[in-house]
């Protein structure tokens, strides 16, 4: 074989392989669904692995009874895993039919234009838009007519507090302002005990605090496509958050290296009075810890730093709108079946059983109302209703990272017991530039 033939053959083979990969066999949903398999991608549940497997089997059985089709569940171990899977599926045009996504990731998913926008007809197929708690629909799409995310689970953030420690210090309930919380924390800090447990080295916690404080102050970090990371209130939020450890000394110095789990562990050992920014899933760990039975949940403060009441324009957000949305891939060949699966997953019965198994709150209105009467859950249910959505922009991930980066780069100073004003201003300036660039690119 001469060289030209060799090249031609190689090219033909490569092209053939590429064409095969792009091929697709269209088939409808009408009629008999037996033999059809839907795939759903979900995060693996490390706290309840066995229960999750059982739940998969239960859903699959129920779905088979209802439609004749089977559901296969795939899991991802981390957000990165999930993203890789979404990217490859989106590019290849094949993969899971239904995805469960974290709420803050929904805008990014929307930006890819790879998921079904729900029209009235589609909402009807999942049981109607009004079957969901209104607050949980806050991050389903940029507006009511362009929604891709169907609320599936709610995980609002709250604050755990040690009832014994508060009682011993004569504090009847956690403060409703961040300044008040700081003062209570000071009062509760003594030998071997700190007022607050904070995971300063966590990859997500820091931005949630800054987001909450600035939203409450009426100057959210992103508004109408404009970033305000270098505003006075943002700086005050950082000074407050970093100040707890650096200047107020109400947090263990070691917390500069803590992730969320280590903060929970410290609270569980009875070394801290307050543990802000945890979801109901912390209950599993805390109920096995030394503070079992001695702690309760409360909503986090809603009055921003430096204020004694909610300023005008401020939103009394108790938490980011947090949980899972499900989305249906546009490339799915079984859209109606996928919507039928979502209908099943968000039914009152399944939502209640999901809560009982995994501790994640229902997004189904009827199921949530039934739970609201449980006093142990009161604060969490309250927070679910008072959560506010993060801005719906495809650039949010970058904003989030820029917000966290300010804390990461401030840790050396924090460890040395100071919040360097000039350095913080510089970092916020950089973060502002990064965030604004990301927002400008958003389409």
């Amino acid at each position: 074989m001469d060289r030209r033939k060799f090249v031609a053959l190689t090219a033909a083979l490569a092209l053939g392989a590429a064409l095969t990969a792009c091929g697709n066999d269209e088939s409808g949903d009408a009629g008999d669904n037996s033999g059809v398999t839907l795939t759903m991608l979900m995060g693996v549940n490390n706290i309840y692995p066995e229960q999750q497997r059982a739940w998969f089997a239960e859903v699959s059985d129920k779905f088979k009874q209802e439609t004749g089709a089977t559901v296969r569940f795939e899991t991802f171990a981390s957000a990165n895993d999930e993203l890789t899977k979404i990217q490859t599926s989106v590019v290849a045009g094949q993969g899971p039919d239904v995805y469960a996504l974290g709420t803050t990731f929904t805008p990014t998913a929307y930006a890819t234009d790879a998921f079904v926008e729900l029209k009235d007809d589609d909402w009807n197929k999942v049981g109607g838009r009004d079957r969901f708690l209104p607050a949980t629909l806050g991050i389903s799409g940029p507006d009511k007519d362009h929604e891709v995310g169907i609320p599936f689970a709610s995980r609002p953030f709250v604050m755990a507090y040690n009832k014994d420690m508060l009682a011993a210090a004569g504090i009847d309930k956690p403060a409703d302002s961040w300044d008040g919380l700081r003062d209570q924390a000071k009062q509760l800090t003594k030998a071997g005990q700190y007022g607050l447990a904070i995971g300063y080295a966590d990859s997500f916690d820091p931005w949630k605090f800054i987001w909450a404080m600035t939203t409450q102050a009426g100057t959210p970090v992103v508004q109408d496509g404009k970033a305000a990371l270098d505003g006075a209130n943002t700086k005050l939020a950082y000074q407050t958050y970093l100040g707890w450890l650096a200047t107020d000394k109400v947090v263990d110095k070691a917390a500069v290296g803590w992730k969320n789990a280590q903060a929970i562990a410290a609270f569980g050992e009875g070394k801290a009075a307050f543990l802000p920014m945890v979801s109901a899933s912390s209950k599993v760990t805390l109920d096995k810890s030394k503070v079992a039975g001695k702690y309760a949940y409360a909503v986090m403060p809603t009055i921003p730093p430096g204020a004694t009441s909610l300023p005008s324009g401020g939103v009394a957000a108790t938490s980011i709108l947090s949980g899972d949305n499900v989305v249906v891939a546009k490339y799915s060949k079984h859209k109606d079946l996928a919507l039928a699966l979502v209908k099943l997953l968000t039914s009152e019965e399944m939502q209640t059983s999901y809560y009982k198994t995994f501790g994640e709150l229902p997004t189904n209105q009827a199921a949530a109302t039934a739970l609201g009467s449980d006093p142990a859950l009161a604060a969490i249910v309250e927070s679910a209703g008072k959560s506010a959505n993060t801005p719906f922009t495809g650039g949010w991930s970058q904003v989030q990272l820029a917000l966290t980066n300010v804390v990461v780069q401030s840790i050396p100073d924090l460890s040395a017991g100071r919040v360097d004003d000039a350095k913080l201003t510089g970092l916020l300036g950089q973060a502002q530039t990064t965030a604004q660039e990301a927002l400008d690119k958003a389409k």
Partner: protein
Amino acid sequence: MNKRTATRQGRPLWMFLPGGLLTLVVIAVPLALALYISLLDLDQYSIREWVGAEFIAFDNYVEAVRDSHLVHAIGISIAYSALVTIGCLPLGLAAAIATQDRFKGRGLVRSVLLVPYVLPAFVVGSTWRIILQPDGIANRIFGTEGLWLNGPRSFWALVIVQLWAGWPLVYLLAAAGLQSVDATVHEAAALDGAGPWAKLRYVVLPQLRGPVSLGLLISFLHNVNSFTLPFVLFGVPSPYDVEVLPVLTYVESFQNFEFGLSVAMAVVSLILVAIPLAVYLRAVRLDTGRGPK
């Protein structure tokens, strides 16, 4: 000229086909795609129809050099990789020489020495992360205070941990090299009155040059490309002092969704690792197929 063509025609070139095809599919096509993507404005908004992403020529490269931390990250990556590689040399050689002569339990010692190298980077990273916490064992043992995983000391933490995990490779190659030094050479040197030091300096070490320099090269490339260890040890966003190239590339792709920019960075790092590789291939003449002279 004529003579060369004649000999070429006699060769069964078709036998290159399986290997050639594999190289094409596994290396050439993805590489060409990567080069192409690095010239596109590819992000979360265009990924679905990525072929249609806007062609922006070298803008990604300009942005990488001018607006991102790329240059800083290259500096950090090269500096720490060089330090680790230099550090591996005495450790690896010493361990190889110490375990060269037969003694009781030598097999066990040799195996134990390899433990850091065979542990997955994720395990190494998580373990050292615990050790280096502000209230961790490292600070307690050395009576130090403060941070190892952020701030200026984090750079040294990265060097130390990567050194701990990486030196056995040099040891392994040095030990293999030692095996190939013929016993008769030792005898001849001894007959000539060479002491242990002279034997090491003039007989053993020259023979180890090949395997050890290969070990150092692999070690350097491995460090420049190492992602898991710094990622697990320091998390993202990276503290400024340990913002290494692979983690920066990862963040651009998987946190900021700037795929084009990220691929441009990856191409730069490819060039970066190609330089020492080319120098090495030149040195051992593997590229000419003639072997060392």
